[in-house]
């Protein structure tokens, strides 16, 4: 068996080497302007929309750069999301060697037939209607943090007072995680998503959060409380599929995916509104436009560009290019979201453009599970912040802001504001 699989790997490697040595670009590419994708994206999209790039560990992958092709790839089962597979494209040097193919997968790394039932088990908690019921409580949380901002020093840091606490408080309450422990997992989450974290440290941080989650879930088992984790225990027990390790994985993913992402969108969008007062004036005059503005901000910043990597498991042609089983692909959401074929004047921020077909939440079966929660949080934050703090302004120049050029999720480390 071991021999067979090593033979298979050998043959895959050898034709990969034969295949090409002509990548023009290395990947990942850093953003040079906080408001635009890496400059090479446009060149790739216009000249060779499905093209090979060189990865940090020396391997290759296909980048997919056009909106239509990105949607096609992400909705095609011949592309696997199995991030523990040895051939899955590695964006950090040494990451592939640290993979654990025998370990249980998180939802985000599952394929059919495993993925659908695992996702559906928790989806009921994230329906539009279910989330609407949380709106008053989210409003309260946002108001509380704006009170704290206003009571604090001027200038204040919006990241610390508003962007991070709001989504953290919300996801903690939903899951039934004591918010008092947020500093603990905040610290570890940063390590999980920073590109420069060495693989062993990333596993250690992951294990720390999982250990925490396992204890918390074990404590809920005897008398399941009425929170997301408690309800999952009851529901999964009733249909005979409850396993603590699986729920630990789901809890971990929701906790990690649920706060850094939305936090970065709050910071970046607030900054963008302050730099584009005419766009801000539109949502202030007509809050019915805020949800459209949220979609446009998601498109414009596309904070998670490379999460949507896949491994081809059956030959497929994409945009005229044959991609073979065993090859990695990177469906570039940020490139798709700036594709002029899908968005007119794509580099302009225009909250009225109708941006809902963006792929900032991905596309296909893995499209973000928390997207409607994120939308609601962003909507409430913008409506409330600019109404309650009408004189809000940046306290430093944009070029002095600490952007997260070194994280897998783009954003701001700090956003000094005054009013």
């Amino acid at each position: 068996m071991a021999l067979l699989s090593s033979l298979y790997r050998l043959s895959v490697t050898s034709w990969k080497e034969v295949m090409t040595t002509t990548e023009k670009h290395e990947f990942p590419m850093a953003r040079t302007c906080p408001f635009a994708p890496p400059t090479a994206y446009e060149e790739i999209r216009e000249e060779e929309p499905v093209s090979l790039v060189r990865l940090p560990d020396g391997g290759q992958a296909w980048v997919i750069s056009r909106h239509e092709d990105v949607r096609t790839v992400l909705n095609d089962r011949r592309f696997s999301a199995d991030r523990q597979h040895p051939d899955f494209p590695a964006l950090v040097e040494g990451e592939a060697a640290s993979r654990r193919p025998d370990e249980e997968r998180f939802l985000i790394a599952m394929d059919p037939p495993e993925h659908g039932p695992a996702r559906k088990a928790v989806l009921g908690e994230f329906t539009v209607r279910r989330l609407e019921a949380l709106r008053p409580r989210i409003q309260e949380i946002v108001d509380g943090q704006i009170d704290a901002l206003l009571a604090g020093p001027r200038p204040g840091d919006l990241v610390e007072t508003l962007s991070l606490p709001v989504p953290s408080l919300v996801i903690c309450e939903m899951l039934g995680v004591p918010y008092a422990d947020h500093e603990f997992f905040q610290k570890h989450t940063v390590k999980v998503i920073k590109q420069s974290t060495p693989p062993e440290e990333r596993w250690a941080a992951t294990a720390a959060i999982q250990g925490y989650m396992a204890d918390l879930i074990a404590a809920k088992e005897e008398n399941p409380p009425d929170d997301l984790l408690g309800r999952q225990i009851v529901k999964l027990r009733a249909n005979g599929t409850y396993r603590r390790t699986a729920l630990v994985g789901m809890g971990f993913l929701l906790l990690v995916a649920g706060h850094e992402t939305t936090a970065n969108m709050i910071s970046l969008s607030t900054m963008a509104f302050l730099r584009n007062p005419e766009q801000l004036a539109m949502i202030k005059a007509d809050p019915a436009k805020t949800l459209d503005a949220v979609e446009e901000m998601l498109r414009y910043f596309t904070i998670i560009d490379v999460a949507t990597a896949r491994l081809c498991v059956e030959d497929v042609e994409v945009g005229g290019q044959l991609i073979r089983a065993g090859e990695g692909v990177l469906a570039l959401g940020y490139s798709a979201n700036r594709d002029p074929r899908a968005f007119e004047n794509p580099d302009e921020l225009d909250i009225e453009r109708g941006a809902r077909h963006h792929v900032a939440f991905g596309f296909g079966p893995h499209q973000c599970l928390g997207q409607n929660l994120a939308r609601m949080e962003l909507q409430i934050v913008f409506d409330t912040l600019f109404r309650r703090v009408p004189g809000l302004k940046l306290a430093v120049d944009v070029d002095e802001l600490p952007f997260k050029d070194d994280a897998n999720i783009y954003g701001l480390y700090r956003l000094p504001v005054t009013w």
Partner: protein
Amino acid sequence: MKIIADTGKCVGAGQCVLTEPALFDQSEDDGTVVVLNRTPEGELVEKAREAAHVCPSQALSLEE
């Protein structure tokens, strides 16, 4: 126009409900789509088209 929803394909993203709650809802149990009105007319026709366009799993098809 007739809306056909394939709940086997649906991934419960709720984009259709956000587009038009008069046409779509989601199951309480597994989040998949529930079509409230299969034969939209008037302004709802355009909404149904938009929903089919933004649906991430091509779970919605329209018979014109």
